[in-house]
């Protein structure tokens, strides 16, 4: 039964906006639960060799109009290598879904600013878009303050729970947050009266990205993945998505996976493509392999901020021409970064113990 909190007594939002949001017909921004189920059933379930190149994987699964689910969290295990390839390939009219991300969404936003006929973002369902200690996200500000993209705001748990609902094959999930905040009035969740307790409880819709992208530390050729440090919401995103592309720092033997099956965080069946890409999260961190590259983040964010302040996109365009469109592969991009930098990043995080055998 539909219910309401007392948020209307205290909100600053206009009654027109509230009414508009209230009357909007609900739709999933990615696959519906039924579509996601059909896609899962149609997949071959054998232990196939799913190793491929990013070029092939992206050409096969990236489509205009898709909901792209971003793995990682802020600057940890950011699937940057996959994002570079999606930008090279081109993808228009995207919906992005994520809890918190930094450089992945800013890279896609910058690609849109440079050439919206090649890459464009239509809307984003999210909890947070920024760089934490490094600063706010300049392109988020540019795109939202100029009314170029639409946002749908949840909390970090809300977005994680939405992916979790998708991964569980259920159409929504109750959460104990959003209610009583303005998110209750603007996002696509609903307050109901719980049929069991009689108390109000907030429901958020499942999120099934059409394409989920994750970077993990280790996986076998079939896509059974181990993750160390923060799992973020990667297992849920991979299992909720219609298709999942996974990069890993290292391919490990299936025998290792079978030795410690409890360590598998993502099972092969939900993974469609596996690409061994050392430093695939760079400049983001990968626990046990490399810390994040602060100067690289600062430099990239600096270019984006300059564009926001001046409207001049020359520097950004030159950067993309050189480091994305001028590279065939992510290894070509990494080859432009000094060995000394990479070595230091590896040393700064190499002490984290991980289990590969």
């Amino acid at each position: 039964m539909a219910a309401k909190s007392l948020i209307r007594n205290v909100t600053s939002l206009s009654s027109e906006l509230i009414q508009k949001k209230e009357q909007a017909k609900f739709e999933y921004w990615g696959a519906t639960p039924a579509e996601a189920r059909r896609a899962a059933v149609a997949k071959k379930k054998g232990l196939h060799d799913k190793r491929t190149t990013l070029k092939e994987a992206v050409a096969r699964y990236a489509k205009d109009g898709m909901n792209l689910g971003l793995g990682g969290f802020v600057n940890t295990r950011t699937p940057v290598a996959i994002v570079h390839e999606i930008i090279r390939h081109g993808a228009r009219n995207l919906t992005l879904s994520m809890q918190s991300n930094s450089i992945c969404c800013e890279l896609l936003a910058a690609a849109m600013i440079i050439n919206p006929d090649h890459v464009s973002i239509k809307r984003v369902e999210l909890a947070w878009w920024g760089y934490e200690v490094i600063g706010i996200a300049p392109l988020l500000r540019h795109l939202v303050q100029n009314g170029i993209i639409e946002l749908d705001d949840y909390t970090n748990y809300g977005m994680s729970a939405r992916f979790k609902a998708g991964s569980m094959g259920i159409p929504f999930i109750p959460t104990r947050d959003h209610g009583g905040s303005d998110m209750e009035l603007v996002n696509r969740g609903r307050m109901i009266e719980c049929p069991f307790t009689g108390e109000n409880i907030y429901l958020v819709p499942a999120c099934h990205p059409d394409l989920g992208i994750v970077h993990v530390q280790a996986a076998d050729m079939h896509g059974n993945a181990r993750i160390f440090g923060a799992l973020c919401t990667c297992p849920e995103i991979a299992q909720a998505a219609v298709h999942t592309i996974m990069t890993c720092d290292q391919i490990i033997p299936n025998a290792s996976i079978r030795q410690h099956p409890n360590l598998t965080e993502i099972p092969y069946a939900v993974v469609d493509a596996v690409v061994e890409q050392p430093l695939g999260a760079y400049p983001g961190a990968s626990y046990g392999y490399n810390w994040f590259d602060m100067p690289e983040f600062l430099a990239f964010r600096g270019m984006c901020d300059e564009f926001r302040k001046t409207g001049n996109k020359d520097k950004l365009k030159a950067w993309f021409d050189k480091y994305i469109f001028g590279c065939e592969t992510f290894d070509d991009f990494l080859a432009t970064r000094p060995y000394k930098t990479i070595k230091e990043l590896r040393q700064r995080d190499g002490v984290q113990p991980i289990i590969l055998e």
Partner: protein
Amino acid sequence: MAEYGPFEMIAFTGSRVLEDNKIVFVGTGLPIIGAMHAQLTHAPSLNMIFEAGSLAAILEQGMPLSVGDTRAFRKAVFAKGLCSVFELTQRGYADYAFIGGAQVDMYGNIGSTIEGGDYLHPTVRFPGSGGAGAMAANCEQTIAIMALEKRRFVNKVDFITSIGFGDGSPDYRRKAGVMGSGPYRVITNQALFGYDENSRRMVLLEVLPGKTAKDIQELVSFELLISPDLKDMVEPSENDLKLLREKCDPDGYFLKRKVK
């Protein structure tokens, strides 16, 4: 008395507010520093949750620069993902939410989504809720760090990102479906605030030595309640400052920032 900066006072006060044998769900920056200082002094059995998914990490590699930093998982006792730690919180195992924000009102509702304009066409768009909205809903008590300025201590928050006591009605939080008891402290460099149990309005509890309640009221848009037992804020000792500067934030990422 030792010389200290405004952010050092905030971090020290944050530490003072945290009790031992509790779990604190920390946001990036000063909340982490406050919790680290508390662990090094009066609260050795205080443990932190980092929202990317760790519990009770040992921060021997230094302060994490992000709540998803690999350092925030060092020697943790439990390392999973966002769902796990937010579900622990929803279940009742996180005592404090320790967050920041751009605007706060007299009932402790906090905004960190937009400032000015409207939701669809904001004058300034901030990164969004992140974990804050969920932390303020379901940690047992919310501690917020704010800059003490009229434009931040507002009559009405432009967009309520993190639930406080709403309109102040006694059943606001219950009808919102959230579990935590709500706002507890607001920390600034010149004043410490709490909330009145009956009216749920913000109360001035402590002021920086040399400041008066009137000085603080001038920096706040709404009418403050003043504690009948108004105290001076405790100032950090030489040893507290040494810990903050050498152990907690030696690179000065947060403590050496300038006040705008």
